């Protein structure tokens, strides 16, 4: 997104066109991140809407000061996901029902890749909370290491280490299931 800082500043002054452009620019990425975290299409849709309504309410309080807007936005999404997981008692480490994941996500998957994404959805649920977060932010939402670090409130070195451990754990899980 070009000149995001200026767009965010306009949005903070109440420029509706700027807010709408930020919404369009981030909607799909936020949805993907949430979908991978919660594994259910209906929940992902509800939470995505809540995230953007929250952004609308609180964009005035965002302080640029070196924190990327994407990191702030994904932090809101993360908090909404955590609230949801707590409410539905799907806390970290609890396995997702595979058939439920399959049915919920089926509509949005490309047919030829359906199997792989389903496997991924199930396998990700067996990672730790932090590992799930890094995989979702890096590979579903497409955030850089720097943006992921800001969103998770950790150093870039810590994110690289977490990314490594998450991929090792994911590989172990996927290999075990074959």
């Amino acid at each position, binding site marked *: 997104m070009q000149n995001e800082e200026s767009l965010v500043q306009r949005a903070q002054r*109440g*420029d*509706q*066109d700027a*807010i*709408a452009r930020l*919404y369009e620019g981030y*909607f*799909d990425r936020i*949805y*993907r991140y949430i*979908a*991978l975290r919660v594994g259910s*299409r209906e929940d*992902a*849709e509800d939470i*995505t*809407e809540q995230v*953007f*309504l929250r952004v*609308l309410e609180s964009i005035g309080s965002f302080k640029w000061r070196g924190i990327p807007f994407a990191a702030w936005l994904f932090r809101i999404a993360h908090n909404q996901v955590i609230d949801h997981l707590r409410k539905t008692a799907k806390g970290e480490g609890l396995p997702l029902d595979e058939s439920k994941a399959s049915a919920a*996500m089926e*509509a*949005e*998957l*490309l047919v030829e*890749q359906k199997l*792989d*994404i389903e496997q*991924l959805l199930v396998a990700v649920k067996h990672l730790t909370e932090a590992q799930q977060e890094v*995989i*979702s932010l*890096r*590979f*579903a*939402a*497409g955030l850089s*290491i720097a943006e992921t670090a800001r969103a998770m409130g950790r150093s870039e*070195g810590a994110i*690289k*280490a977490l*990314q*490594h451990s998450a*991929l*090792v754990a*994911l*590989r172990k899980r*996927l290999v075990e299931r074959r």
Partner: protein
Amino acid sequence: MSMGFEEILDDCIERILVKGETIDGCLMAYPGQAKELEPLLRIALASAKASQIEPRSEFKAEARYRFLSALSAKGRGREKRRSLGLRRWVVASIAVLVFLLAGGGTVAASSGAMPGDPLYSVKLATEQVRLFLATSDVARARLHAQFADTRVAEIVIMAGRGNSEAVEMLTERLTNHLEQIVNLVGGEEGAEIDVLVALLEGNAQRNQAALELALEEVPPQAIPALQHAMEMSRTGYERAIQAIEGHGGGNR
């Protein structure tokens, strides 16, 4: 300073996912770590398939409408008129969206769709587009009055089919249309408002009569839901008319 394995892994992930390099190309750049890198890079590539998850187009359209409505409501509190730029953006994007989503023929075909029909969501989306394209709050209020009429007609049909759940859902939407009319033109005055009140009074009578007539013919299981719809329709129209007339001064 030599790179640690985590840095090398991330460098390869960036090369492959961002720059489009191959796994083999990256392994050649780090031959000493190739054996350990390869399986992890393959998992990273598989994980990147998550970026192909797409929200449903129908959900995107509905969510965009709700977000823009919330944005518009917030903007109305800030300033009386929306910027021309946003207006153009909304008109262009929503119109393109609906036609992408459904196509002109589908939009036309959806006008008779009922809840549960595949085209009913297209019918609702079309109503939302018409609201966005309306040029004034009075025009939007008139559209809400028209859509309230449509909801009553749908209530009669769904009650006739014995579908109480659909009747309850439609009653909620009917109430919402009537509330929106007050939100849009409450506090306004003038000839257009007088015409709107007259329209609502006529619609209220006609719709109440239609619902009463339906009550004699619907299956027994739909009677409580239909009676509730009658009550909500009666009180909803009364409240809307009173709220608008209360601000209308001596014209009425």
